[in-house]
């Protein structure tokens, strides 16, 4: 007897969590668009409320369509469980609120999505949770920033938008040495490009709005529990290891073992903060997840072609893609991200801000908007949009210049993408020529 192989990623992406609908035989996962679910009798109802039976009560807490998505993502990440949330921001907030309260501290990478930075830098301090931002490329900087009241280490698998590759094994070791969990935002990479739990991360969040759903049609998030962090041994997480008065003194680590974190997040966080996902949204994300593997493969191949083109262009002063020779994370990317470093990257145009604006305005095929991970190619100028609240120093810490352009490469024919970029570069070139004349 030997262990059969576990199903592969493409198979799990299609099948994990779902079965033909027992009521109708429907093969696609139905949209259970129902706020609540009937109880066969009073004792059954009581047993659902008291976590004696498995089932659904109210769609803020759980829903059959969402459950399929949650199980599928947990399967793709090799976690113990997942929760679908209203957005990626809701997933991040849910994780933080599950782990800590006022007086706590987070160590986070400086290179973060602007929305995450806003939450950590401006909103959470009002609730008594402070964050120290450190260089994502320096594991020792994470170690140095840890305080007695630190409760979480947080970073992106590849930073937004500079694609700083997180050394997950080293940062996880730093976190674990201090009795802390490492949470990573794997939105840009998805389980197709990296499985962070295999490298030591403890919690994963996704903005499912991006590559997981893949078509830019919904807002959603996912929070995944790896199930390996020992909350009891750490001793720093009373929400998971001490009686919870809000649920009849339930001790989550005692009753749910490896799933303590994700169960508390659902039983308290979804219940009280209410940032649940609509079942229709879950259905849309499931359609995207079904083709995750083939889409990500094409995203990456198209990106490599565009990166090669831009990297050889005289009007481009820098291309930030970790697979390129000379990129500071090239070796790390090769080890952790052999299938590719996402399909979002940034580059700097000669000519700075004015050239960047001319470039963006001249593009036709690329859509100018604030999103990434769409099947369609996207472009944005971070300094004036997604990261506009950050001052120059904070921008620089995140690897962003005033003329930085961020591209999200879609699934179009690559020759058409490059043709569109050439058009943008011609417009930018005219700005550079004018600047030269002015000098």
């Amino acid at each position, binding site marked *: 007897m030997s262990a059969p192989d576990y199903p592969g990623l493409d198979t799990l992406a299609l099948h994990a969590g779902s079965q033909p609908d027992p009521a109708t035989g429907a093969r696609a996962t139905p949209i259970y668009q129902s706020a609540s679910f009937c109880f066969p009798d009073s004792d059954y109802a009581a047993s659902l409320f008291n976590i004696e039976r498995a089932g659904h009560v109210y769609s803020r807490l759980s829903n059959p369509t969402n459950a399929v998505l949650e199980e599928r993502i947990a399967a793709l990440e090799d976690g113990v469980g997942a929760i679908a949330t209203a957005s990626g921001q809701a997933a991040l907030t849910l994780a933080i609120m599950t782990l800590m309260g006022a007086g706590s501290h987070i160590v986070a990478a400086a290179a973060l999505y602007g929305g995450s930075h806003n939450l950590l830098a401006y909103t959470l301090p009002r609730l008594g949770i402070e964050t120290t931002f450190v260089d994502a490329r320096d594991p020792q900087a994470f170690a140095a920033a840890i305080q007695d009241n630190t409760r979480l280490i947080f970073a992106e698998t590849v930073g937004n938008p500079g694609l700083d590759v997180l050394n997950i094994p080293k940062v996880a070791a730093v976190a674990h040495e201090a009795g802390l969990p490492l949470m990573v935002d794997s939105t840009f990479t998805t389980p197709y490009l990296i499985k962070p739990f295999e490298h030591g991360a403890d919690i994963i969040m996704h903005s499912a709005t991006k590559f997981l759903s893949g078509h830019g049609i919904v807002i959603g998030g996912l929070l995944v529990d790896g*199930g390996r962090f020992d909350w009891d041994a750490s001793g720093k997480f009373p929400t998971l290891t001490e009686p919870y008065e809000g649920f009849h003194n339930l001790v989550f680590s005692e009753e749910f073992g490896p799933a303590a974190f994700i169960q508390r997040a659902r039983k308290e966080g979804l219940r009280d903060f209410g940032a649940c996902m609509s079942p229709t949204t879950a259905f849309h994300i499931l359609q995207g997840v079904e083709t995750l593997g083939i889409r990500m493969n094409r995203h990456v191949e198209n990106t490599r072609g565009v990166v090669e083109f831009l990297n050889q262009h005289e009007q481009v002063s820098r291309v930030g893609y970790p697979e390129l020779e000379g990129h500071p994370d090239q070796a790390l990317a090769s080890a952790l991200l052999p299938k590719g470093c996402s399909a979002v990257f940034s580059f700097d145009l000669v000519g700075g801000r004015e050239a960047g604006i001319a470039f963006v305005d001249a593009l036709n095929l690329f859509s100018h908007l604030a999103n990434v991970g769409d099947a369609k190619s996207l472009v944005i100028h971070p300094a004036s949009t997604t990261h506009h609240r950050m001052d120059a120093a904070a921008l620089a810490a995140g690897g962003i210049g005033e003329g930085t352009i961020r591209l999200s490469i879609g699934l179009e024919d690559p020759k058409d993408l490059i043709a569109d970029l050439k058009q943008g570069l011609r417009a930018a070139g005219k700005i550079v020529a004018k600047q030269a004349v002015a000098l």
Partner: protein
Amino acid sequence: MKLAIENNDVYCYTNSRDIDPAKPSIVFIHGSGMDHTVWTLAARHFARHGNNVIAIDLPGHGRSTGAPLENIPAMADWLEQVLDALKIDVSAVVGHSLGSLVALEFSAKYAARTRALVMVGTIVPMPVSSAILAACKNNDHAAFDMLTQYGLSKRHQFGGNRSSGIWMVGSALRLYERSQPGVLYYDMNACNEYQSGLEQAAAVECPVLLVLGSEDRLTPVRGTRPLQEAFHQPEVSVIQGAGHTLMMEAPNALLDALHRIL
């Protein structure tokens, strides 16, 4: 709740309640390499329904300290010590897989202290393949993989958990990975070497319920005939579609089955 037996901690999940001598008691015993958390839903249910519930961690498992016990009779004797310490004279004993053999041995040897026996995901004898034993002995992760994959029905390899968002493959693996090195080998070896089960079954006097998964590949239903014949008129509940890991794969159907005898 923690007790001390022979200088080792013994952990019993009791739903955060003290033992009430006026209430009936139910003891839940986990399977190889597992711990009390596999019984959380059932224990919570029967606690609310007026029972003392005691979901134990066998020595060296979960939150209990000490070396794992080498054989099923030793585990049954240890259970008697636990119940003595808890001042529980009579209880129903519910066990899964390895735990079902402990429950069987206890029910036969300590008949006066057993009011009902429930064996979940069971077979007697319970031979373990040499490949699994070898992997367990080497503390090879392949042992966890084999037990997880053969422990779930083929359908449940792809999930379909009634508990929202919980991935059964990952949950089973994490529990095995938490076990101390060597513990799984002790457990599997104890199952493999327990040869007196059918004789003990014939000695059981209390009501008996077998709860089996129709798709169980580790302890298949078709192999339970000798056990069913050894008992005096056991109740048998076969849960359709479920594999060996019934508490995870079919928690509601299992609860309904347990109500037939508890």
